[in-house]
């Protein structure tokens, strides 16, 4: 591989300071209620652009097929990320270690998870590294586990994965499958104080063009500019029930009841959530089910509301989007479909909904 890589940008597409808020708003929608709020990573990305300049958005196909791509993201607790807001050197440490492991220079950065706070993390680090950002990502949305991504579905190896913190501590996880990556990384994240910079599922530009979710950055920008689909319903949150799912390892769950207003008066929609919104049901009929993206967008602010911030009386638009087609294959549904979130009863409807629904 050559030492200089020519980056062909998509027209004049840049993530600059002006487009950044739109981008972050779109990432919040794609977070499907999860992925963490961008309230810290948005100004962090703004600062990085201010210091280092705008980030070119790059089509993976415009790079040499063997060019090395570094997927990036934060792993850990959003509450910790709200205190330890990040250093300046983490992306360089990740890159140095990554390049040493691969014996080749990184040509571009890609987001591991476009949904939630990690979309802006990729912009910040691309800016600090002076690299382009691929118009793609590994999930197309947000999911709670690191191995819930389309590169896992494509059979790519998770390792070598690198975790790093602001002090320069690094951990390399290698020779693992996706489930093990999740276990090892989570254990390391505790030692890292609940937050670490991560790169995992390393790939080439050619693999990114074939297997990653295409167009994620431009999709987030468009969604943030209000160019998304029409809401399925506009109304207000009329009840929020927080509970634990049944079983020994019950997880935190939330049931949100939306009461339609205006033209939607009289309609009731139940939205179920785990760490993301996972189903929207009207009269028992699914309107959308994970892996569909389900977002509640605050009518007042235009921002999608995280699951943990949904409260009584909030006026919202219910917006749903299809996910990447890879998520609707049998393997995709097994990894991150309804059954993976304890909604096995809705498994059959997802494919039908998908078949009858839109395209991506």
């Amino acid at each position, binding site marked *: 591989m050559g030492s200089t890589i020519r980056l062909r940008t998509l027209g004049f597409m840049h993530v600059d300071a002006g487009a950044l808020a739109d981008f972050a708003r779109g990432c919040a929608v794609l977070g499907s209620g999860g992925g963490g709020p961008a*309230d*810290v990573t948005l*100004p*962090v990305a*703004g*600062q*990085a652009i201010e210091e280092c300049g705008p980030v070119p958005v790059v089509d993976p196909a415009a790079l040499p097929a063997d060019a090395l791509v570094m997927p990036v993201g934060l792993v*850990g*607790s*959003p*509450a*910790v990320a*709200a*205190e*330890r*807001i*990040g*250093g*300046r*050197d983490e992306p360089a440490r990740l890159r140095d270690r990554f390049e040493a492991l691969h014996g080749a220079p990184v040509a571009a950065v890609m987001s591991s998870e476009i949904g939630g706070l990690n979309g802006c993390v990729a912009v*910040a680090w691309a800016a600090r590294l002076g690299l382009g950002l691929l118009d793609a990502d590994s999930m197309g949305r947000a999911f709670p586990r690191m191995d819930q991504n389309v590169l896992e579905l494509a059979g790519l190896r998770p390792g070598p994965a690198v975790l790093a*913190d*602001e*002090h*320069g501590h690094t951990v390399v996880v290698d020779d693992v499958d996706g489930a093990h990556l999740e276990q090892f990384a*989570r254990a390391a*994240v*505790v030692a890292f*104080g*609940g937050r670490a910079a991560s790169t995992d599922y390393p790939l080439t530009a050619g693999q990114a063009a074939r297997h990653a979710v295409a167009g994620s950055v431009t999709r987030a920008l468009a969604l943030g500019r209000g160019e998304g689909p029409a809401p399925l319903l506009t109304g*207000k949150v*009329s009840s929020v029930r927080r509970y634990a799912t049944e079983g020994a390892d019950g997880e*935190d769950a939330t049931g949100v009841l939306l009461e339609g207003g205006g033209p939607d008066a009289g309609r009731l929609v139940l939205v179920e959530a785990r*760490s993301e919104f996972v189903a929207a049901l009207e009269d028992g009929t699914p309107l959308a089910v994970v892996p569909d993206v389900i977002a509640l967008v605050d009518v007042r602010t235009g921002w999608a509301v995280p699951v*943990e*911030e949904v*409260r*009584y*009386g909030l*006026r919202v638009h219910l917006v749903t989007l299809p996910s990447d087609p890879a998520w609707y294959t049998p393997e995709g549904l097994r990894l991150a479909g309804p059954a993976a979130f304890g909604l096995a009863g809705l498994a059959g409807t997802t494919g039908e909904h998908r078949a009858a629904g839109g395209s991506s």
Partner: protein
Amino acid sequence: MRIGIDVGGTNTDAALLGDDDRIIATAKTPTTSDITSGVTSAIRALDPPMESVTAVMIGTTHFLNALIEGARLAPVAAVRLGLPATAALPPMTDWPERQRVAVGGHGYLCHGGREFDGRPLSPLDPEELKRTAADIAARGLTSVAVSSVFSPVAEEDERRAAEILGAELGPGVHFSLSHELGRVGLLARENATIINAALRDLAAAIVESFAKSLAEVSLTAPFFLSQNDGTLMDVDFARAYPVATFASGPTNSMRGAAFLSGLGDCAVVDVGGTTADVGILAGGFPREAAGESEAAGIRTNFRIPDVLSLGIGGGSLVSPDGETGPRSVGFRLTEEALVFGGSTLTATDLAVAAGRADIGDRSRVAHLDPEFTARALDRIAERLAETVDRMRTSAGPLPVVAVGGGSVLVPAALPGFDDVRRPGHFDVANAVGAAIAQVGGEVDRVFQVPEGRRDAVLAEAREEAVGRAESAGARPGTVRIVDVEEVPLAYLPGGATRIRVKAVGDLDLNGISTTHAPAGAGDTHGAASHA
């Protein structure tokens, strides 16, 4: 007897309450630019027996206005302990230009801070802090804001850093520490701390001018300022934590509405000259807004009442098509409204024309088409009802209490709300709210909650909140827990949980010293305490 005073942008309102909480007198006077004379004339208008007054409670929007205007703010040294973490975003980076310039934009990144479980993030570096102190001294900065990563979990680093900096900088420099002002979320907590530091000189001046006003009318009773949550702070606390007054305006008027109407659970519509502010009372306290709040475009994490504002007030302009607001004649109502001989059709003119209010000269609105007047007033009622409906949390019946000078615009029933009340003294609800305020204590930080220990940890947090309320001046025995919130932090071991407990009790006047020391030299770092 107690006196409640609300110093607003336009009017200074006052209410005199007996020991049985009966309202003895009320007054409304124009706010003056020196504050002092407006307050003295409001008190004189009440004409209280000065020696029988046991306490004076004052609500003021002065500090918030100073921040919005970017005026009278002191330059601040913002010292953050967190390196090598947090360098991605130095202090005040995302502030609006006006406020950043007003406080000087002096940010310092130093080592220190903790992890979520209290482990050191990096050790405090005394030499680094001494170098920082030298720069602070060279710039002549006398107000220092110290923030530290996870200080709500472990506050020692902030205290230590303040000691080291203080020893270098000498007397006359005061410190605002973030763990005393906010909760988890470094940027918002740090912002609140910097704002507080910028307001401390002003706070000393304001407290002094209040003291002067009271002395001028020979009042010797202690005085208190209203905080965001409707509880009181004494003058020492007010000098050290002026930022805690920011949202006291809406809180006081809602608490006053609850008191005047006798309702603890209701919607409150506070109609002023320019806006109608709608909030919800639950158990006598305003429902608080979720998430972060903004003050003058700066995000902070104060707890503020969840209020929705609608551009309809007594001075709102009425257009020929019958729509009202959002433009308003504001405080010039008494010159510009038709009923006062002016030439502008305002919402107040509609109320007078419809016979709902007796303000000014009614004959001056006799020419208005009754059908037009009714339609415009119906439209106002419709929009008010919509706003109340947006704020309600259930479909059940919800009484609505209308207060404020412009509440003559609120009819006896709103669409969807049959029970609308306008209690006596509605026009000074905010002053009444100040007068009835209690004393509070709050705990809000991350606790480790091992399995099976939840109840014990919660009990510890409750006890601490009660203790804080008592040391802030609440009478032991009257303190009750008004709010408990538990939020487990995702993806962390050891049951790390953010627990917030709020306790409130009656003001113990026997425990209060009656000297209001003139503001200035006396500098306090700690919480309010009156042993």
